[in-house]
Every structure is written in C-alpha cells, then in structure tokens.
C-alpha cells in the first residue's frame, strides 16, 4: 500500500518539475556551455585542452527576443547551423537585413529575413564568411550574461565595428 503511491507521487513531482522547467527554458532563458575559441576573448579566452568541459564558459541565453525577432548590431546569438540543424553556434550579429557587409573578396548584401554573423576571434571562427547570411528563423536565443567561471561573471555587451558595415 505504501510504496506504489509513494513511487507515483515521486513520478508525478518529477513530471511536473520536468515539464515546467522545459517550458521555462524554452520560453524565457536557459544556460548553455560555450565550446571552442571562436568567440575569444569574450568567451573561453584560454583554450585548455585538458579540462575543456569544466573550464568552458556557461552563458545565460534569453528567449524573449524570439517573439518578434528584432535584433541589434553587436548582439551575440545562438543559432542552428545552416549546414547541420543538430549543431548550434554562438556568434555575434555584424549585419542585419538590408546592410552591406564587406568581406575580403567582395561586398555582400544581406537579404530580407537574414543576418550576417561573425565570431569575435576572426582567425578561428566558422561563420557567415563561410556559410553566408543566416536566416533569422534559425536563431534560438540571445546571450545576455556570462555565468561561469565566477571571476568572469558579467553581462555581455554589444560590440559593433562600423568600418565594415554600411547600414541600409
């Protein structure tokens, strides 16, 4: 008599917590680890190959921006890779729809509904310079704060470089 109803109560509580936390993480904000050095020195300034997963930065990603998809130059966003929908990348928005962005070879016009993203560490970053403008529908959230490691807890500022982008 005691054990099945205790088990059922525990299962119900786990289910409630799971469903509510899934909804909150999808609609409000979630915490994500940053892999790789493409956003150095903003995230992961030191690449430590021995203890990588422990020393990776953890950032707070807010999802409220997905209600109207309005972003600004310099926002750091999380988006699904256009080449592989299972991978997510974290990069900075350099160009918005209608902008003209200068790359080494030519000047690219950002079409409607797309954005141009680049990593802060241009030497080792796979970004729009390789796969072109990214549709805004692939954006999954905006990075607002660094939460780990404790000595670098801060908010993530917008950084713009006016010399390469001419607005629409």
């Amino acid at each position, binding site marked *: 008599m005691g054990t099945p109803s205790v088990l059922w109560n525990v299962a119900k509580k786990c289910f409630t917590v799971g469903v509510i936390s899934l*909804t909150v993480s999808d609609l409000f904000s979630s915490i994500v680890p940053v892999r790789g050095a493409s956003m150095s020195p903003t995230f992961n300034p030191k690449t430590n190959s021995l203890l990588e997963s422990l020393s990776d930065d953890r950032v707070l990603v807010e999802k409220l921006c997905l209600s109207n998809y309005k972003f600004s130059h310099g926002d750091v966003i999380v988006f*699904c890779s256009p080449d592989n929908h299972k991978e997510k990348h974290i990069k900075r928005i350099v160009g918005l729809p209608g902008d003209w962005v200068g790359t080494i070879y030519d000047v690219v016009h950002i079409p409607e509904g797309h954005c141009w993203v680049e990593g802060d560490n241009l030497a080792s970053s796979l970004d729009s310079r390789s796969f072109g403008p990214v549709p805004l529908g692939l954006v999954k959230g905006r990075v607002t704060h660094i939460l780990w490691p404790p000595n670098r807890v801060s908010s993530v500022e917008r950084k713009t470089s006016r010399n390469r982008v001419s607005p629409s």
Partner: protein
Amino acid sequence: MGEWSSRVIPIVRGLCLLYVTHKYLGTTVVTYGPSMLPTLGITGNVLLMERISTRTGKLRPGDVVFFRSPENPRRVVCKRLVGMEGDQVTYVVDPKNSDKCNAIVVQKGHVWVEGDNIYNTKDSRNFGAVPYGLVEGKAFWTLLPRKDFGSLAPKPK
C-alpha cells in the same frame, strides 16, 4: 500558502504540458493562400501537424511540411517537400512565361520545397533551398473542410 499552491501548480503544469505538446509533439494549423492548390484550398484548411518526423529525420519527398519563411522569421509557410539534401531537383524556372528548366543538387543540411500550384507560389525557386533547421513539422491529417477530411493527397502529376 499550502492550499493556494496546490491549486495553482496543477494549472501551471497543465499549461506547460500544453506548451510542450505544441512544441515537441504536434498541433493544429490553419492554412490559407493559393500556393498549394488543389491540395489545400484558398479559403483555408485546418491541418494537424506533427513534429516527430522532423526531429527523427523521417521526412521524405512528397510530404507537406511547414517551415519558417527564410524571408520573414515570423511567418510559418506550408509547401511540399520535393528534395532532401543530396537530391537532384529539376524545376521549371518561370512557368507562366517560358518552359526553361533548371536542375540543381540540394546542398547539405537543406531541403527543396515547392508549392503544388506552380503558377502562384513563392517557394525554393524564389528563395533557394531552405535550411533543415527552419522546418517546423509535417502535415499528416486534414480536419477541415469536411470533404477533405483524412490524410493529404500526394503531389498531383
């Protein structure tokens, strides 16, 4: 405090369960517009969309899919899946004016979509192959209008 939370928590749990079902399992969608004639009518159909095939990668050419428009991330568009990544797709570039055809290979991580009504549709022939990450779900059942109740028709020849 105790009885307040015992009334609010089931409500919150129910709403969150509705959201999780809508986002991860499936939902009903209202469509409108002429781009999928004769499969879907102009005045609107109510369809059931499921998201499980998208997540498990079981989409096949011929499925009617919903995806976020590459031109406007706030709009969800309904078209028929014609080619998966690696497929070779042949399409008529401008059916109203000429018979010129073009053949492309769908790039990695993308899908090629076309409306059934090729004379009045904006699809991959206009905005190119769509990244798979934009695909929301697959339509598998028509609820309204009553005469179309049932699974969706395959692509008309």
